[in-house]
């Protein structure tokens, strides 16, 4: 590997979270972004298929992660534990916020049909959503958006990685007018 690739490899190994392109570029201010990208590609190719870990593009950055096939064995030995799954209520709230951001609590409540205050507080506490701005209108409500941690726990590169609404089998559409009721 090139010296730059080795430097990035060392930095990524040392970090316990994804490192963004800007963070990686700060290692050597004389190197162009394109060179960083090339070096990252080199590392990825080197690891690809030859190692138990791989370089993964995640949460708008890069991180070394273990390969999926070893998860069970590692977990059985209790060297590492899977994070607890989010509840359906939390995922529902996250889905709405991810697609509607910036979005206020009232809108989330309305779509879910239940009070979502407690769930949203918990998501803020876990750092998965945050207040991004205040809305217009009465009381200037707090508007929420997702954080990089949200991308990280779902293994997404960025928000573009989320399925497009048109790709869902249930597309949101206007109900067809009904001529006669039951």
């Amino acid at each position, binding site marked *: 590997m090139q010296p730059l690739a080795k430097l990035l490899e060392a930095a990524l190994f040392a970090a316990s979270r994804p490192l963004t392109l800007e963070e990686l570029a700060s290692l050597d201010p004389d190197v162009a972004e394109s060179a960083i990208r090339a070096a990252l590609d080199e590392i990825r190719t080197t690891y690809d298929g030859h190692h138990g870990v791989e370089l993964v593009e995640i949460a708008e950055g890069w991180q070394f992660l*273990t390969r999926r096939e070893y998860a069970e064995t590692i977990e059985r030995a209790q060297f590492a534990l899977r994070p607890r799954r989010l509840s359906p209520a939390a995922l529902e709230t996250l889905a709405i916020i991810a697609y509607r951001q910036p979005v206020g609590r009232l809108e989330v409540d309305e779509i879910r049909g239940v009070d979502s205050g407690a769930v949203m507080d918990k998501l803020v506490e876990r750092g998965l959503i945050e207040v991004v701005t205040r809305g217009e209108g009465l009381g200037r409500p707090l508007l929420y958006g997702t954080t990089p941690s949200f991308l990280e726990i779902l293994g997404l590169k960025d928000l573009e990685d*989320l399925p497009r609404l048109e790709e869902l089998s249930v597309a949101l559409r206007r109900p067809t007018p009904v001529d006669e009721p039951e």
Partner: protein
Amino acid sequence: MTSPIMRDQTGFVVELEKFSGPLDLLLHLIREDEVDITDLPIAKIADQFLSVINDLGLNEAADYLEMAARLLRIKAQMLLPRRMGDDEWEDPRAELVRRLLEYQQIRELVDWLGRAQDARAERFGRGYEAPPADAPPAPLQIDLNDLLAAAERVISLIPDPMPHRVVPRPLDVEGATARINALLAEHETFGWKEAVGPQATLVDVLSTFIALLELAKRSSLTLSQTEPFGPMVIQRATPREAA
């Protein structure tokens, strides 16, 4: 058909988690009945919804009650007669159907996010540690000087006592006038004490006094004192004088 909804003696908190809300429960019923969302048999669904929340003890949960009320209203609206070929007629189910479709889309996203979450959980990063369930906070390391310095900082932040701001209560002259008029209707003469009422506040006294002066000016009553600083006597004016 065996319903996955089971009665549970442990109360509705557990059951509430089975459905993330009334829309979830509704979708569940619709799927179970295999009916068309866009042409909801509202009467049937409303009855099922009511019976399920009753069985689950959810009828104390406000969100479910609100949906139950909504369903019953739609059911009632559907029963209202309307003219054939009435273009103005708006399907009372339309808003609910729109919300159900929207919610169904969210549920589909939830499935997707759940799968993404599971896939991500199978790859460990370096130094990853599952967040401890209830780790006790680290013990404080502090010596007496730090503590005193901190106390001093806090004390210096306490502002000087603020003078209490008195917000004047507006005088209620109308109220006093009404009260005096009521007394005038019953008694020909009465004293200041009756006029002002029991346990009068300063505001009541002022209001009553202004009301009396105003009524005297309008010749509704006369005010007199038998001696300087003596008790005030309030007397109903004769009709002639009032006219």
